[in-house]
């Protein structure tokens, strides 16, 4: 018996198992953000007025616009999976690329939003921010950390979907084997879900 056969026998395919692993990973992501939501909820509970005041600094329009972008990108992601299920490879690739474009659009928006804040001196350690009340400092601390980590997840998602596009082009992801794309989709939808909560909790509490 050759060792190659040995090695090959290790690679057994279990799509449901792969998805299960992905879901479990998503739970760790959920709890990771959950930890920050603990912080948010307690600090908001203790500093209600300061949080309302601080939230006034955030631009609801940009926030809403970004929410729309992210929700749409979730749609395009879902469609790209449906397309590969129907063996429509080009359509799938198109929608994956569209998802990436939307994600980048989200990040560009975020960039402008953050740089405007930083320009006004509202950043960790900034004098403008330190002059504010402690509740407001906490609000912005959480704002930067939570949207920052969320942004990091968006970037990871972009890279991940980029890989998937390549695999789809190579024919690794195809009608009868698309669990990788599905896993990337699951990740992307989780990023969306996190934002679904971040948006009202930071932008809509005035």
């Amino acid at each position, binding site marked *: 018996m050759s060792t190659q056969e040995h090695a090959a026998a290790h690679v057994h*395919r*279990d*799509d*449901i198992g792969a*998805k*299960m692993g992905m*879901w*479990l990973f998503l*739970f760790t992501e*959920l*709890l990771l953000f*959950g930890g920050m939501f*603990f912080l948010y*909820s*307690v600090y908001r*509970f*203790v500093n209600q007025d300061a949080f309302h005041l601080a939230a006034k600094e955030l631009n*609801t329009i940009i926030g*809403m616009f970004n*929410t*729309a972008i992210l*929700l*749409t990108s*979730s*749609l395009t*992601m*879902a*469609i790209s999976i*449906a397309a590969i*299920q129907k063996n429509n490879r080009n359509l799938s690739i198109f929608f994956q690329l569209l998802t990436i474009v939307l994600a980048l659009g989200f990040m560009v928006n975020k960039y402008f939003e953050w740089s405007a804040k930083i320009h006004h001196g509202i950043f960790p350690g900034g004098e403008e921010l330190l002059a504010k009340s402690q509740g407001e400092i906490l609000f912005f601390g959480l704002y930067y950390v939570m949207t920052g980590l969320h942004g990091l997840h968006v970037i990871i998602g972009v890279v991940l979907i980029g890989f998937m596009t390549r695999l789809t082009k190579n024919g690794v992801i195809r009608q*009868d084997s698309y669990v990788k794309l*599905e896993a990337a*989709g*699951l990740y992307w*939808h989780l990023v*969306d*879900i996190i934002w*679904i*909560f971040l*948006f*009202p*909790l930071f932008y*809509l*509490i*005035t």
Partner: protein
Amino acid sequence: MENHEQHAEHGHGYGIYILVWLALMALTSITVAVAGINFGALTVATALVIASVKTYLVLTIFMHLRSEQKAFRIFVGVAIFFLAISFILLFADYSF
């Protein structure tokens, strides 16, 4: 046998995804519109309820939870339960 198992699911058309997307957009508009109104203590609750409905839609349709094995739904239940119970117990300290 394995292959049969792998593909027993799915078959969502594009239509349902677009419908869900429309619903998500509509809910976003509602949550923004409602935020202007002061419900007092219920303001946060309203925002969270709407966000939960949106999450439910994403989970069941976009993330295919509806057509997945039962074990997956139980898994999600366990994770959310763990998160929720931690919130409740944490506030057992802070709200008194």
